[in-house]
């Protein structure tokens, strides 16, 4: 496989994978349990999920390490398992990626608020991300994806930690925005322009948005990112908004709808198109078909 850095810069467009959480719920993860617990107890579940997304056509397979920083794990008393959880999650995906897809280490928020909003010091948060990044890199990820971030300072700490752990491993960094009367902002009040500048400054190799929105808002976000930055762009959309149907949470945007609208992302010049909450292998299959079709 070509180095991921090249694919990000020169194309062709990469298809990301879909939601991890719903897949885990369907395979017995009890609500409220951190997903990372599945890694050590039943790694075969992670292999299955990776295989399903790989066969659906994903180029990037993310690891089950979203909440794998020690600060986040500590909220469940699991910080000491940080290294093992990150390593085994990477190895499980690597066994399935087997040269057909890139292994991307997922790094989500620490669950803490930095001073002055909260009481976590930057040094403590940086150290937490460092531990996670070192474990991911040692286990052999092809890239790291810092995602679902809402606080720019935290995102920067994570990106820098990744770069420090392995300068040559590409770092993707995406934030979650909400549509507001004044424009798109994260829940911490960060604008797209601020995010683009801040993430680039921290050393991210590709930037963009994930989660929070269905594909139509994501297309608008992609446009704003494109206007604010020359870096490769990453967009991972939710399958719309969640609704409760007969007691189950269902997302309302179909694979066809997602893929159809996602076509506009190609024109905008996005480098990675994937799915977040509510997306399934079917959504990824539809994205794959759309991307392949557009290349003809």
């Amino acid at each position, binding site marked *: 496989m070509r180095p991921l850095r090249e694919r990000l810069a020169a194309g062709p467009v990469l298809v990301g994978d879909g939601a991890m959480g719903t897949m885990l719920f369907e395979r017995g993860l009890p609500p409220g349990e951190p997903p990372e617990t599945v890694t050590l107890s039943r790694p075969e579940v992670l292999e299955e999920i990776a295989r399903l997304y790989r066969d659906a056509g994903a180029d990037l397979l993310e690891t089950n390490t*979203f909440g794998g920083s020690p600060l986040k794990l500590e909220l469940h008393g699991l910080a000491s398992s940080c290294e093992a959880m990150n390593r085994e999650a990477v190895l499980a995906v690597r066994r399935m990626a087997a040269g057909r897809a890139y292994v991307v280490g997922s790094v989500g928020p620490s669950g803490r608020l930095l001073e002055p909003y909260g009481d976590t010091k930057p040094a403590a948060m940086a150290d937490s991300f460092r531990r996670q990044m070192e474990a991911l890199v040692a286990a052999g990820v092809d890239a790291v994806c810092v995602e679902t971030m809402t606080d720019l300072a935290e995102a920067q700490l994570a990106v820098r930690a990744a770069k420090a752990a392995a300068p040559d491993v590409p770092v993707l960094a995406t934030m979650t925005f909400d549509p507001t009367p004044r424009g798109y902002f994260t829940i911490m009040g960060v604008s797209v322009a601020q995010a683009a500048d801040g993430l680039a400054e921290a050393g991210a190799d590709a930037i963009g948005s994930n989660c929070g929105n269905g594909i139509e808002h994501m297309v608008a976000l992609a446009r704003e990112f494109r206007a604010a930055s020359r870096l490769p762009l990453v967009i991972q959309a939710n399958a719309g908004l969640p609704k409760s149907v007969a007691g189950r949470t269902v997302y309302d945007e179909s694979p066809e709808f997602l893929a159809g609208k996602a076509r506009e992302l190609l024109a905008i010049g996005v480098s990675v198109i994937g799915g977040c909450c509510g997306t399934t292998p079917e959504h990824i299959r539809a994205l794959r078909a759309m991307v392949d079709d557009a290349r003809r």
Partner: protein
Amino acid sequence: MNEILTFTTADVSPAREAVLAQLGIPPLAALPPRTEGLLDAAAKLFAEHVAPTGVMSELPPEVFAQVVRGEGRNAPESPVGIIAARAEHLALFAVTLGQGIGDALSRLFAAEDFALAYTLDAMASVAADGAAEIAERRFEAALRARGWAAPDGAVLRYSPGYCGWDVTGQRRLFAALQPDRIGLTLTDSCLMQPLKSVSGVLIAGPKAIHRFSPTYDFCDRCEARTCRSRLVALFTSLRA
């Protein structure tokens, strides 16, 4: 569901760290002995005078839509309205620590025992908020017991005076909830009495409905800004 909420003193007694935070004291390695003394004295007074109680009343979304409209003074776009529209279940609620605390505070100020008064006041503010949080959990527990399955469901509270819901909305809220059954009244200026009380709506639904960016005009004027920590706690978990 329409019920009186009962709380023990222990239920509403706030954690030390929270009281210190409310007083603006950061988590220090060691507190000066006299600050410890103040906390102890305040805790004693708190336990002696607190009489916590609450009330919770479920209502259909269409009815809440009327309640939240209030006297028509809400901001044109308000997170509460938007979130409530996507809710699966709603309940009006009110909690109070009772008048005893307020009276104790008046006495302390009259006696010029300022430091103790402020410590007790901080304790009571944290406790009132804590009682509201307990109401959130009780509503969620009741819903789950009834079969509400949403694995990514969450219950969050919203109160008049915040997030674009004008404080005059208290009047419709009180009319609908009738919290005078727990001794809670509203002045003409929409002030609750006893002062250490919280009222509002409990909104249950998928976590995602609660997300909003605090970038509205009224956010600039907000002193509380609790939305940030609530949303971070809610959303920096499972990406799902």
